[in-house]
């Protein structure tokens, strides 16, 4: 074909045209640069005082996610809160946090928060936005025209100044204040009143105990003050000269707490009291008791070990051994969880108190001088009464503040129906939950990150709550709203002299300061308070003696309703508590410690039963109870008795935002309003259920489907009596393998980590902390079903067997091992991952082209791939850490030991012309870890804590045989003689 022939009719070839266009286009681009994006820099109009862009500020405040009241330090960058850390000054949490605390900023930035006041429109039957002025006017009008009915203020545990404030607000109106906590532990209070004459919950000092005997108390999950308990647990797990503490846990199922005990005893549900009485019986009959038994002797005399063995299905030998061990060391008995929720719960707690009394623990590990504030909550009986009053129309105005009784009170009470009978409901909550939805008026409060306040978790500690940023939405603190409303209410006109709740709070503290620190001026005192975040006082010791009331207690069998063959345990979830955490995507996506399930509910069932019924993981079953039925997928679990099934609480919302709504089932809804006889507390363990197979099965979405580690010893254990025999250290574990390549050399730093498996409880605080620090997206259930989860650190969980055949649950935090001989590095075609001179396995996002070879070759499966550009819906994206790149579709990512923190630390050290000191840089996971299991540091510094621990005789590397030379040393879990 000749060129001429190929020309078009008009003589201009397509190729020529393109040439011309190319020249012209290129010139134009150079000259005009018209297509360049323009980026703007927006300066402040008036710069805020003390804010330096690029330099973080930390503000103290107090966590209000549960009643523990941990002290917090909130990291603030350019006016936005971006990360929560524990306040090291707080005696409650000592700088540590839990997963719920780490996710708390997703409450502040939750896209489903109420953004402005809402009023119910009777025509459309919907809540519609109004202005603050009109909203407050409506409330004032209602208060002014209050008739003969009652006004009730219903809130969660708000000890401190705000409770006094509410009392002042209600007094002229003749109103009542109900403090409602779903799990208010009434049986513990009642039992303390019966045994010691003190209607309160003391501080249980796990940190001072060597032997912990827990009757169902899920102290690592939801029981009282979990971070504080975890710190105590960690101390108990310290190994000193071949000795360590021991934990015995009694519960029908092995939850996270039981799984961390040395011995788990699955007593028959509801019979824990007999077990405690049997132990007490042995103590007295063998003369082991340290305190004169007095009237107790008669109470326990009938409960011989043999008799108790038949009642509880626990052997007499075990009972005797526990009695001996319990009295032989600094011990503590605690009761809670399932043992605390039967119809005989108070009796069980009385029996537990007897143990502590006989062992002389009162005043030592049981500290009545420092009671918890949750002691002041209303009982379930009070709540029942309130619901009846609402139903009968006695309540005219109901103010709901941060509680969700429609969701958390048992279905039998029919709270939603009772609310229909209340003429006017105003909600001060920040979210539209099942209760707020029923309100006639919503005056949304600012969260505790946006408002002033204080909270006293126990007598000795009062924490300050201060705003760490400006309100995200058009909201006001509840205190400000009420003050503002009171100015237009006749009866309240002169109640408050202050204009703002902040002023009210300060005047209250002025009075306190005059008592606590009379020498310091108030302004100085206030400044110290806000900087430190809390004040502590030393409570005076109290004398506790046995109350004569104790003889009145008789012990009875638990009562169950329903005909089914299984005891139904509905247990509080450590992720969602009573359901309040379900709207935070990081908590939904935090795999449950035992099942590793996400975004869902499940029913735990024993393997023997499952086999008989033809059930497997993910099979659907119908659970029938007298209160109704629900359908749910099963998880076949060895850690539960065959006569029991268990389901977590907290899911099954019908409202409460996009992340909570329509996931799993809500067991509260079908529970009867059964109570513990003596205390009137809610009885969760009160139902027998029948379970029938629905003959269908689907994937129960989890992050780990294997239950056993098989023949690959990922998690290792060592017997306590084996320790200290291998010379100083180094067994075969540290033997050097021959290597083809020369050793890598490091000059200043070799970053490494030591993780103590004897301390790790599997609580997941590290996982959520990592997500918050490193801008890790949540991907949802569908993506996780495709194994596309994004967490950089995960908790591996294995169900193994002890030598006696009993269940041995092991947890192992798995993150990038920063291998010295990394399999991911040589397979990357573009050098996006490499080993750096400080021992980090670098991951360079801008080089990555997304081949995923590295993830395929990773021994530890810790690399995560962005299948999509995952979104943080506005304003969740406000929390993004500006020091970490937000990854987009097609990029591989993984842990780099928080390299942004190392870099920040090095910058500060360089200012002083020195190297980083040990503990100066903490990784996010380490900083959060409440049990202090994770220690990061420089392995070149022989004295660094990480170095010392890495050389420990318990140290080993995971899958060392592959010769990846990980920088993370795991310390074997210690096994001791079981009861």
């Amino acid at each position, binding site marked *: 074909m000749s060129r001429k022939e190929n020309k078009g009719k008009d003589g201009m070839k397509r190729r020529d045209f393109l040439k011309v266009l190319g020249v012209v286009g290129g010139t134009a681009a150079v000259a005009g640069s018209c297509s360049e994006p323009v980026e703007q820099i*927006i300066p402040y109009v008036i710069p805020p005082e003390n804010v*330096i862009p690029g*330099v973080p500020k930390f503000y103290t405040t107090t966590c209000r996610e549960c009643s523990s009241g941990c002290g917090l330090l909130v990291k603030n960058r350019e006016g936005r809160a971006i990360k929560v850390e524990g306040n090291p000054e707080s005696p409650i949490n000592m700088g540590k946090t839990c997963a719920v605390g780490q996710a708390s900023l997703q409450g502040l930035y939750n896209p489903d928060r109420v953004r402005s006041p809402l009023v119910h429109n009777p025509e459309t039957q919907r809540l519609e936005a109004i202005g603050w002025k009109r909203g407050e006017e409506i409330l004032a009008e209602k208060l002014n025209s209050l008739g003969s009915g009652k006004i009730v203020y219903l809130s969660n545990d708000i000890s401190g100044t705000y409770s006094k404030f509410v009392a002042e607000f209600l007094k002229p109106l003749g109103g009542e204040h109900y403090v409602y906590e779903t799990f208010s532990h009434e049986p513990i209070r009642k039992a303390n009143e019966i045994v010691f004459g003190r209607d309160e919950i003391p501080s249980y000092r796990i940190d001072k105990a060597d032997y912990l005997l827990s009757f169902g108390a899920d102290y690592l999950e939801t029981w009282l003050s979990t971070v504080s308990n975890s710190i105590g647990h960690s101390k108990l797990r310290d190994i000193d000269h071949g000795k360590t503490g021991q934990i015995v846990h009694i519960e029908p199922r092995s939850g996270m707490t039981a799984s961390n005990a040395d011995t788990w005893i699955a007593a028959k549900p509801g019979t824990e009291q007999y077990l405690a009485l049997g132990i007490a019986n042995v103590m007295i009959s063998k003369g082991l008791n340290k305190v004169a038994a007095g009237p107790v002797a008669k109470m326990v005399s009938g409960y011989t070990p043999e008799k108790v063995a038949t009642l509880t299905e626990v052997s007499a030998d075990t009972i005797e051994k526990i009695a001996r061990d319990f009295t032989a060391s600094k011990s503590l008995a605690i009761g809670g969880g399932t043992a605390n929720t039967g119809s005989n719960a108070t009796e069980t707690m009385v029996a537990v108190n007897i143990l502590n009394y006989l062992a002389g623990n009162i005043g030592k590990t049981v500290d009545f001088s420092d009671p918890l504030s949750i002691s002041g909550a209303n009982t379930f009986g009070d709540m029942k009464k309130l619901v009846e009053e609402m139903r009968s129309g006695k309540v005219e105005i109901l103010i709901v503040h941060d509680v969700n009784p429609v969701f958390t009170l048992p279905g039998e009470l029919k709270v939603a129906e009772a609310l229909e009978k209340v003429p006017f409901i105003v909600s001060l909550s920040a979210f539209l939950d099942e209760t707020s939805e029923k309100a006639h008026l919503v005056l949304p409060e600012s969260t505790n990150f946006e408002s002033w306040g204080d909270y006293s978790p126990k007598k000795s500690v009062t924490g300050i709550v201060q705003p760490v940023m400006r309100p995200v939405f058009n909201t006001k603190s509840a205190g400000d709203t009420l003050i503002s409303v009171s100015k237009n209410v006749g009866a309240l006109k002169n109640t408050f002299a202050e204009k703002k709740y902040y002023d009210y709070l300060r005047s209250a503290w002025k009075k306190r300061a005059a008592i606590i620190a009379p020498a310091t001026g108030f302004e100085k005192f206030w400044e110290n308070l806000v900087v430190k975040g809390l004040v502590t006082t030393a409570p005076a010791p109290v004398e506790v003696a046995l109350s004569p009331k104790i003889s009145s207690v008789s012990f009875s069998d638990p009562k169950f309703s329903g005909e089914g063959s299984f005891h139904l345990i509905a247990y509080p979830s450590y992720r969602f508590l009573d359901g309040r955490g379900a709207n935070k995507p990081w908590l939904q996506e935090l795999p449950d410690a035992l099942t590793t399930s996400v975004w869902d509910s499940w029913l735990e069932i024993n393997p023997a039963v499952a086999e008989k019924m033809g059930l497997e993981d993910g099979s659907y079953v119908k659970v029938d109870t007298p209160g109704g039925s629900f359908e749910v997928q099963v998880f076949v679990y060895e850690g539960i008795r065959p006569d029991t099934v268990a389901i977590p609480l907290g899911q099954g919302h019908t409202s409460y935002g996009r992340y909570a709504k329509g996931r799993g089932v809500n067991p509260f809804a079908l529970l009867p309003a059964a109570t513990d006889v003596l205390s009137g507390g809610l009885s969760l363990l009160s139902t027998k259920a029948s379970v029938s197979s629905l003959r269908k099965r689907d994937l129960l979405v989890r992050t780990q489907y294997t239950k056993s580690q098989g023949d690959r010893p990922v998690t290792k254990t060592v017997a306590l009596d084996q320790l200290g025999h291998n010379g100083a250290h180094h067994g075969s574990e540290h033997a050097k393998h021959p290597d083809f390549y020369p050793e890598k050399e490091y000059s200043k730093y070799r970053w490494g980590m030591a993780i103590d498996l004897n301390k790790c409880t599997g609580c997941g605080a590290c996982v959520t902390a990592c997500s918050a620090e490193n801008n890790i997206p949540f991907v949802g259930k569908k993506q996780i079903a495709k194994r596309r989860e994004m967490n950089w650190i995960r908790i591996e969980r294995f169900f193994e067997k002890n030598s006696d055949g009993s269940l041995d649950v092991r947890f192992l935090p798995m993150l990038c091992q920063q291998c010295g001989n990394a399999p991911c590095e040589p397979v990357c075609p573009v050098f996006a991952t490499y080993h750096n001179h400080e021992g980090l396995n670098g991951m360079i996002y801008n080089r990555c082209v997304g081949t995923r070879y590295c993830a395929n070759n990773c021994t530890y499966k810790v690399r995560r791939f962005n299948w999509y550009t995952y979104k943080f819906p506005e304003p969740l994206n406000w929390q993004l850490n500006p020091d970490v790149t937000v990854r987009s579709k097609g990029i591989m990512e993984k842990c780099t030991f928080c390299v942004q923190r190392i870099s920040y630390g090095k910058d500060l050290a360089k200012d002083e012309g020195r190297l980083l000191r040990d503990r100066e840089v903490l990784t996010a996971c380490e900083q959060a870890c409440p049990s202090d299991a994770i220690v990061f540091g420089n392995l070149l510094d022989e004295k660094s804590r990480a170095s010392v621990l890495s050389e420990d005789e318990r140290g080993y590397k995971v899958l060392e045989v592959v010769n990846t030379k990980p920088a993370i040393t795991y310390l074997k879990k210690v096994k001791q003689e079981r009861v």
Partner: protein
Amino acid sequence: MKRERQRFLRIAITVLFISAGFFLYAESAESRDKGPAQPVLFSHKIHAGDNQIQCQTCHSYTEVSPHPGIPSVQKCMGCHAYVAGRDVEYTTQGGQTINIREEINKVKGYWQRQEPIPWVKVTGMYGTTSAGMPEFVRFNHKRHIKRGFECSTCHGEVEKMDVVHKAEDLTMGFCISCHEENADNEEHKTELKDCLTCHY
């Protein structure tokens, strides 16, 4: 031959029109000053050159933060509440003519409205134009200033520019070559080769 000539003419005319269009468009969009047009014609030459104001007077965080800081409107007004500016015409190096007092009045307008001035970013890290620094690059002003580098090393002679433009292309090559020249020892060079120094 006639055909060939016709073809050449067609191409020539097309080139002429298209390029004229682009050039005209470019001319109208911007002056001949090299930098991008700003909401206020703030002359660094008048401030830093003629009046000898130090860079850090306005960019005050260079020594304490990774970010140098852009002065707040309040800072501008700190002086311009008193300095009204001469009511004279001023011609920039690029040939734009402005009235100094009118430009200052624009700043006062922002202050009265309590609005920030939406400055256009000049010193992006990417290429020769004004695109912003990509998110995956970490640059710390503080370290460079503390080491004793002049601002002009990277930003050019800003005190001689009426309209600031990007003096160096500020790509990775620019960073690396300067770091190589200034490395004290082999260790510094090792750090230089570490991607994680700047990318995370």
